[in-house]
């Protein structure tokens, strides 16, 4: 094989590595998600509903779940958890209500982003119903009580007796899908809005 040929073959192999690593850089994105799903390291919870079936309730343990609600810059909604803390038994299904109100003069679509601390507890928080699974539209001046139903997996490590779930509400009207033409099912009628 001539020198030039040998060189070219090697170049092709190296370019293949370069392209592969570029792809790997992008592959890190779903890889990171998978890793976080498995280990809970960044405290993100599942995006879809869990199923509650034949989970044994562990009466011997109590876990306190604390709720924090925040709205991001530019998001004018009022947003608060009706209960700041609940004491639950792992395996037991609980419902917590979250109040939202849109005081602005335009319809707004919100996305709630959850975050759990300690991060590893996120693995054991199973939400069977959550307003964070979907974008939530709310007409101008309207309010709603959004439920979140969850159970704590009994596999939760014994050392964790307290964890915090924070929801940050973002205004995603600009990038909302066409589903926003449907009214929010949790909405209290607009006539009752205001103080």
């Amino acid at each position, binding site marked *: 094989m001539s020198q030039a040929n040998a060189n070219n073959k090697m170049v092709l192999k190296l370019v293949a590595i370069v392209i592969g690593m570029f792809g790997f850089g992008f592959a890190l994105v779903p890889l990171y998600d998978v890793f976080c799903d498995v280990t809970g390291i*960044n*405290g993100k919870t599942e995006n879809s509903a869990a199923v509650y079936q034949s989970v044994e309730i562990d009466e011997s343990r109590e876990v306190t779940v*604390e709720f*924090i609600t*925040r*709205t*991001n*810059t*530019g*998001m*004018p909604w009022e947003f608060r958890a009706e209960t*700041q803390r609940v004491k639950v038994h792992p395996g037991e299904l609980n419902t917590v209500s979250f109040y939202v*109100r*849109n*005081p*602005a*003069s335009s319809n707004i679509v919100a996305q709630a*982003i959850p*975050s*759990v*601390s*300690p991060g590893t507890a996120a693995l054991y928080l199973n939400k069977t119903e959550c307003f964070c699974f979907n974008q939530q539209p709310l007409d*101008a*001046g309207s309010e709603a009580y959004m439920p979140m139903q969850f159970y704590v997996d009994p596999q939760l490590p014994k*050392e*964790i*007796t*307290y964890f*915090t779930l*924070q929801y*940050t509400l*973002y*205004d995603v009207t600009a990038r909302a899908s066409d589903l926003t033409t449907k009214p929010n099912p949790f909405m209290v009628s607009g006539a009752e*809005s*205001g*103080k």
Partner: protein
Amino acid sequence: MKQLTNVIAKGAAAFPFLLFSHFLYAQEAAEEVSSLNLRRGATDISGQVYDLHMLMFFICVGIAVVVFGVMFASMYLHRKSRGAKPANFHENVKVEIAWTVVPFLILIFMAVPAANTLIAMEDVSEADMTVLVTGSQWKWHYKYMDSDVEYYSLLATQREQIENKFEKTDNYLLEVDRPLVIPTGQKVRFLITSDDVIHSWWVPDFAVKKDANPGFINEAWAKVNEPGIYRGQCAELCGKDHGYMPVVVIAKEPAAFEAWMSEQEDIVRQAKEEEQRLLSMNMSMDELMKEGERVYNATCAACHMPNGEGLPGVFPALKGSKLALEDQKGHIEIVLHGKSGTAMQAFNKMLSLKEIAAVVTYERNAWGNNTGDMVQAKDVNDVAMGN
């Protein structure tokens, strides 16, 4: 003779180390904020961290002294000008194994206490109280999770000191208008997040540094032993005033802390009542402009500049802007709720209805804007409530 010069060479190398360590010990004994070294701090954890740091430091100095000592000795003993003839060896299995294994063992010796301290630091369980710490450009917000009390904490150093017009006072750049207050002797849990970019909440005396990530929540904890004032800074580049958002924590004895808390709760209650009162009050143009200018310079001028011209390409001008000249409702809305996707934050929690009314009035009339508009607290409340 050779051995003597060897010893002298090693001693010469060790001297700066001895001098240096004297400084460190002297400073540590003085128990004031050292200008040379980490401080022991105010918690058990910070003391452990300090001890770990000193252990690491001395091991590293020891390694350096030995290695450089050998090298400097060689530079003296094996100089060609001294008649040295080069030897022939270029490997020695026993020595090579030794200097691979020994450093490895030193590492294990360092790793054990390090791991223990780390586990202790990351154990946030069984806290006595919780504070939610929110970073934003360029200030901190504190909320006591078991109370109504929440407030912003901004740099209190005067602009004129920064601009070298006034003499700088003692706690230059490390003072805030409303410090965080916590009790001593109790495990205080900090929940840390951000409203915009990544910040980092750092109190050196507690050995607590945790990033404030937007949309995510982190935790840290401290149990302070001694009452006192503890000062720290933001520790993650967050934009132009990253160096101007300090952290100040005051630790009080539990009884004093309880007293302070009730005082704060009273203040919150009174402020709420005042807001209600204001809804029926009207301020004069003069009052609005005066208060508005004060609020503007304290809060808005950092980005929009005292002359209202902003920073082209970065922060928009208010002077001659469409919002300030025409859309009063939009103007109030943007001050209340900010604008997502930009650096313009929501000020509805930071400024009272009266302050927002005043600053919007100011912005609509200053710098030649001259709309003649007067915005009252009730107008702001109407927009906030969606009426």
